[in-house]
C-alpha cells in the first residue's frame, strides 16, 4: 500500500514538476518572444523569400507593424532586396522592416555578434568610422555599433544642381577628428577630392507619401522658390534627407547605390522604378504595446497603426485642437470609461499616452534660438508647443521644408559632452563665416559643430547645424534618435528638449511623452 502510495506520490510529483517546468518554459518563451530583439528578423540582401503584406515585429515596447499595400513582395530579384553594387549590400540592409524600415543599434550589435563583423552593413565605405582603420576591429565601427551612425562623405565646397562648384559663405576647419577620417589624406578635407565626413542615422523608408508631399511654390524657410523635381518641374517636399540633398526618391536611390552600395554601373530604369514603387507602398507604425495592448482596435485612437498611415490624408497642417498631429486620443483619456476587459495597468498606460499627446500638442514653452523657426518671422522666442514645429499630421514633420537648427549639432547646445572629453566620438568642425554673408542668426560668424547639416549642401552660414526633422513613426523599433544617434532611448530624447528649452517638464509629463512617442 505504502509503495503504491509512494508511487502515486512520485507520479504526482513528476506531473506537477512537468506542468511547472512547462509553465516556466512557456513564460520564458513568451517573455523572450515578446520583448527581446529577434536576430532572425534581419533580412539579408539577396536571401530571397516573400515579404508578407502585413507583418508585426517585436521590439522592446511591443510590436511594429509593416503594411505593404500592394500585397506580398517577392524579394528574389527585387532591386530593393538584392545587392546591386560592388559590396553585397541591398537597400534592405540599412532599411530593415523589423526596424521600421531603418536600423536599430540593438539589431546592428546582434548582427555584429552573429556574423563576427562580416555582415555587409559594416562595409568599410560608410559602415565604419574610417575606411582606413582595421575593419575587423569592433572599435573601428563604434559609431555604427553604439549610435547607429553611417558615414556620409560630402564634397566640399558643395556643387549646385548642375554640378558646378559653388562659393560657400564659410570656411571649414577640422578641429577634432576622433575617427581620423576628416584629416585622412585620401578621405579627408585636404584629400584629392576634399570631403567632409559627418555621421548620421538612416531614415525610415516608409510612409513616404507624407514625407515627399510638396508644400507651396515658395519655400517659407528661404523666401525663394521651392526646389523642383528636375524631371517634372513640380515643387518637391525637401523632407526626405537630413540635409535635403536629394529631392526625389529617384535621386536618393541613385545616390544610395553610388555611395552606400559602391555601385559603378548605374541603376537601370526598371530597377529604379521597382525600388520607388516598393518605397511608395510601404507603411510603418507601432501596432501593439506591451503595456497598453493592441494599438489598432475599434473605437481606439484613429491615428495609430500602419493602416492609419496608409489611409491618412497628406499635407495636413495639424497644430490645432480640432484634428491634431497624431489625431485624437479621447477614447484613452479616462481609465474608468475604457473597456472592462482591460487590466488596470493597460488603462493607466493608455491614459498616460493620451496625456502625452496633450503635452506634445499643447504644453507651451519658449521656443528659442532655433534657426528656420524663430528666424522666419515668428519671433524669437515664441510661446508655443512641440506641435508648432512638428506640425504635419501623421508624421510630425514640418509642412514646409523641415531643416531647423534645434541645437543638437552646434556648440554649446550640442548633444555631445559640454566640456572636453577624450571619449567624444564625433568630429568637431569650426565654420567661419564670410564678413559680408548673413551670419548664423543665433551663433554669429564662428560656429563649432559636429555636423554643419544643410549648410554642407547650400554653403550658407545661416544653415550651419540645420537638420531636416525626421518622422515620428515606428520610433520604438529604431533607437537611437536624432540624426546623430545621441539619444539612446525616448527618455533621453525628451530630456534633450527639456534641457534645451528649459521646459521644466515634470516626471509625469516626461513619462507621458515617452509613452506617447513609443506607440506612434
Amino acid at each position, binding site marked *: 500500500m505504502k509503495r503504491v502510495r509512494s508511487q502515486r506520490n512520485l507520479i504526482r510529483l513528476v506531473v506537477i514538476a512537468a506542468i511547472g517546468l512547462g509553465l516556466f518554459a512557456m513564460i520564458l518563451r513568451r517573455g523572450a518572444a515578446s520583448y527581446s530583439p529577434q536576430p532572425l528578423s534581419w533580412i539579408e540582401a539577396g536571401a530571397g523569400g516573400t515579404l508578407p503584406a502585413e507583418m508585426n515585429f517585436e521590439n522592446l515596447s511591443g510590436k511594429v507593424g509593416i503594411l505593404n499595400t500592394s500585397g506580398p513582395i517577392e524579394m528574389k530579384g527585387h532591386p530593393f532586396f538584392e545587392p546591386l553594387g560592388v559590396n553585397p549590400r541591398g537597400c534592405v540592409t540599412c532599411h530593415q522592416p523589423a526596424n521600421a524600415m531603418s536600423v536599430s543599434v540593438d539589431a546592428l550589435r546582434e548582427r555584429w555578434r552573429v556574423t563576427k563583423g562580416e555582415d555587409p552593413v559594416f562595409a568599410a565605405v560608410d559602415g565604419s568610422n574610417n575606411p582606413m582603420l582595421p575593419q575587423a576591429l569592433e572599435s573601428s565601427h563604434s559609431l555604427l555599433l553604439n549610435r547607429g551612425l553611417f558615414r556620409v562623405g560630402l564634397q566640399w565646397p558643395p556643387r549646385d544642381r548642375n554640378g558646378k562648384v559653388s562659393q560657400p559663405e564659410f570656411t571649414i576647419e577640422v578641429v577634432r577628428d576622433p575617427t581620423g577620417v576628416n584629416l585622412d589624406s585620401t578621405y579627408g578635407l585636404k584629400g584629392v577630392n576634399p570631403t567632409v565626413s559627418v555621421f548620421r542615422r538612416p531614415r525610415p523608408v516608409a510612409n513616404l507619401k507624407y514625407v515627399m508631399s510638396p508644400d507651396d*511654390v*515658395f519655400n*517659407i524657410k528661404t*523666401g*525663394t*522658390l521651392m526646389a523642383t523635381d528636375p524631371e517634372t518641374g513640380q515643387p518637391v517636399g525637401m523632407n526626405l534627407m537630413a540635409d535635403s540633398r536629394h529631392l526625389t526618391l529617384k535621386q536618393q536611390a541613385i545616390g544610395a547605390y553610388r555611395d552606400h552600395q559602391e555601385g559603378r554601373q548605374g541603376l537601370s530604369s526598371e530597377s529604379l522604378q521597382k525600388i520607388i514603387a516598393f518605397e511608395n507602398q510601404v507603411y510603418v507604425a507601432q501596432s501593439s504595446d506591451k503595456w497598453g495592448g493592441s494599438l489598432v482596435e475599434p473605437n481606439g485612437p484613429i491615428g495609430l497603426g500602419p493602416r492609419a498611415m496608409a489611409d491618412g490624408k497628406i499635407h495636413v497642417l495639424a497644430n490645432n485642437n480640432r484634428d491634431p498631429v497624431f489625431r485624437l486620443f479621447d477614447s484613452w483619456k479616462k481609465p474608468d470609461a475604457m473597456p472592462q476587459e482591460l487590466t488596470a495597468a493597460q488603462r493607466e498606460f493608455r491614459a498616460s499616452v493620451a496625456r502625452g499627446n496633450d503635452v506634445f500638442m499643447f504644453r507651451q514653452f*519658449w521656443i*528659442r*534660438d532655433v534657426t528656420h523657426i*524663430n*528666424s*522666419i*518671422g*515668428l*519671433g*524669437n*522666442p*515664441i*510661446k508655443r508647443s512641440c506641435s508648432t514645429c512638428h506640425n504635419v499630421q501623421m508624421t510630425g514633420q514640418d509642412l514646409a521644408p523641415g531643416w531647423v537648427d534645434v541645437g543638437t549639432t552646434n556648440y554649446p547646445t550640442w548633444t555631445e559632452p559640454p566640456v572636453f572629453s577624450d571619449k567624444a566620438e564625433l568630429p568637431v568642425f569650426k565654420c567661419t563665416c564670410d564678413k559680408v554673408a*548673413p*551670419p548664423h*542668426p*543665433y*551663433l*554669429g560668424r564662428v560656429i563649432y559643430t559636429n555636423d554643419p547639416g544643410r549648410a554642407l549642401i547650400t554653403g550658407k552660414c545661416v544653415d550651419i547645424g540645420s537638420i531636416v526633422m525626421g518622422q515620428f513613426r515606428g520610433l520604438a523599433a529604431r533607437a537611437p534618435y536624432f540624426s546623430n544617434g545621441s539619444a539612446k532611448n525616448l527618455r533621453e530624447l525628451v530630456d534633450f528638449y527639456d534641457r534645451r528649452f528649459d521646459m521644466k517638464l515634470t516626471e509625469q509629463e516626461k513619462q507621458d511623452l515617452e509613452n506617447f512617442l513609443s506607440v506612434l
Partner: protein
Amino acid sequence: MSTALTILMALAAVFFTGATTVVQHDKPPANRRNFIACPIVRDTKTMPCWLAEYEGELYYLGQQGSSSSEFYPPQLNHEVLVEGTVANEARICGGIPLKSVRISVRQELNRACNTLLPAEDGLDAPPAPARRPVEQLRQQGAETDGREFIVPFDFDSDYLTLHTTRIVGESARVAKAVNASRIEVMGYRATTWLSNGQKFIEAASIAERRAKKIGGILVGLGLLPAAVSVKWKSEPEPCDGVTDPEKRRVTIKIVP
C-alpha cells in the same frame, strides 16, 4: 532755428504764395518713433507682447502671431529698427502703441538683447488679429491698374515673407494673364531718418540683391528671361522720417 518757427514760416509761405513748400526738419515729425533698440518680450495670459524702449518710454510693437500674421515680431539676441507713429490710444502691455509699425531685425548678434518679462496682472495682450484671407494677401502690393506691384522689404534685407512672396506670385500670374511683352523689375535702397536725427542708410548692394532675387523668381515662375528686365538704383532714396519704409522696395511693372 526751432522746429516750431520753421513750421510757422512754411505755413506762411503756403498761405501767401499758394506754392507747395518742403518743410525742412532736423528731425522726423514729433509723432514718429524711428529708433534702434533691443526688443523686449513680455509674456501674458495669452500671446506674448513685443515692446521696445526709446528715451525712457516703452512702446508696444505688436504681439506674437504666425507666419501669416501681418506683424512679424523682433528677435531676442538682435537689435531691431522700429519705425512707427505714436497712436493716441491706451497703452497695451504697458507700452504706448505705434501705428503702421515696421520692424527690421538687425542681422548681427547682440547678446545684450535678452529681456524676457513674465506675465503681470493688468498687462494683457489684445485679442489676436484675425488671419487675413489669401485673396486679401494677393491684393497687397497691387497698385494703380493692377499692372505695377510693389514688394516691400525690411531694412537691409532681401528676405521675402509669406506676404511678399504672394505679391511676387501674383505679379507673375498677371504678367502671364495679359501676355506681357515686358516685365520691368526695379530695385531700390532707402534711408531711414532716425528720431535722433541720424540718417541710417541701407547697404550699398541691397537694391541689386533685391532686384536680382525678384527677377530670378519671376523667371522661375515661368516668365521668359528675355522679357524680364532687372535694374536697380544704387543711390539711396531720400528720407522724410515717415515714408522711409515704403522706399525699401522692388517694383514690378507689367507692360502688356
